């Protein structure tokens, strides 16, 4: 019980002295924490390393130096873009990549895209794909969700819908780290910012 309480009190993410990049360093000596259920915005100009930071936390890239303390099993990553090569995969198959079908369908209902379950993912609009991808992250039962510019390719209506999801109860019990350079979203969310 004591151990469980200690785990509960642990931050969702703790980064110390982190250096990131590909062949050369993009960012050095980065340190910050994201508390449990905290919502954080990562902002900065193009090429400042926002996406690289998320990829490094998600385990896609190896850190060049420093440490990342997080529960790797409970991270969900929402990418900025989708695979360029189209192939047959249904929306439900995408939403259930990391969970069972029933849970994925429940989250598709929560994000208002359950009616698209049988449609091919690549036949959906940008906004619909993003809702399916959000359902995947939610179905994954992650305690930390990393989102890379989730509204960048969306029309105004879909952007408003995504903004609603971000502020609403769906993500209330999750820590969220969101990369954006959309001033209206930064203002609308009013979250703590990490500037790169």
């Amino acid at each position, binding site marked *: 019980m004591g151990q469980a309480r200690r785990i509960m009190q642990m931050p969702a993410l703790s980064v110390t002295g982190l250096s990131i990049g590909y062949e050369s360093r993009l960012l050095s000596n980065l340190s910050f924490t994201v508390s449990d259920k905290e919502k954080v915005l990562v902002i900065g100009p193009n090429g400042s390393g926002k996406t690289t930071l998320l990829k490094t936390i998600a385990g896609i890239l190896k850190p060049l130096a420093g440490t990342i303390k997080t529960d790797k099993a409970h991270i969900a990553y929402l990418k900025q873009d989708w695979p360029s090569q189209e*192939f*047959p995969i249904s929306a439900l198959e995408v939403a259930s*990549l990391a969970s069972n079908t029933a849970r994925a369908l429940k989250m598709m209902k929560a994000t208002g895209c359950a009616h698209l379950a049988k449609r091919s993912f690549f036949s959906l609009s940008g906004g619909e794909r993003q809702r399916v991808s959000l359902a995947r992250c939610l179905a994954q039962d992650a305690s930390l969700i990393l989102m890379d510019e989730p509204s960048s390719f969306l029309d105004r209506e879909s952007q408003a819908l995504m903004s609603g999801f971000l502020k609403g109860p769906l993500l209330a019990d999750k820590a969220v780290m969101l990369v954006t350079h959309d001033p209206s979203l930064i203002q609308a969310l009013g979250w703590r910012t990490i500037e790169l």
Partner: protein
Amino acid sequence: MMDLAQLLTLRPIILGFIGMAIGGIAFPACGVIIIRNGLVSLRYALMHGIILGGTISLALKLPMNLTVIAVNLILVLLMMRLRFSLSSSSALIMVFTMAFASLLAHVADVPSKDTLEILWGSPFALTSQDLWLMGSVGLVLILYCTLSFKILSAIAFDKETAISMGLNVRLHSTLTVVIAALCISVSMKTLGALLLDALLIIPALCAGRTSSSLKGMFIQASAYGLGFSMAGYMLALLFNLPVSAMLSILSAFALLITSLIKGARKK
């Protein structure tokens, strides 16, 4: 028709029929993996590996199936060790295998008729041992696809997403390459190195045009594969034509039709 019924009582014809059925049902799943994981250039290299393995077995009088499997597994390991891109290492392997096979065939005086058998294959030459091997590899493939469907789906969808989900993408990429090498190697006797695509790739391509889900793509690829192999085999028997050519023509025709259907649907 009476002739066909009589033919179907002969042991080589029955063994060929079973071999085509196994290959038709199981191996298109390998095609789905090859297409989705971008392993098309690797499969070209492995088809050349068949020619090298076949030539080595003929020259040294070794069992063909096992020699081809061994050569292709060595080639796969070699390609994974090379720090080149997949297309570059495939190109290197293709040139090396063909050059070595050509030299070996010349030095060991391998009869050209036997070499042609490697290129074109013949299901009538299948033995019960070949069928056991095909069946075993086919079973491993289907079990792997069924048990690891979610993992395969995640990797097929996006490797970065799969890594972020904590999946061991490297392990599964290695497993899929090894399974592809096994499937290509054991399919060789049915259609030969040159027309393997008719059984592996084209059913998967057809399914990619008519399915809207990955599960549907796997199931439809098997259905297409079985349909092509059975129809091709029967037509070849009826008209006394080469099985590999009949199957290839049928599958290419089906690919054309499904592409037209997909194009019409998009309009």
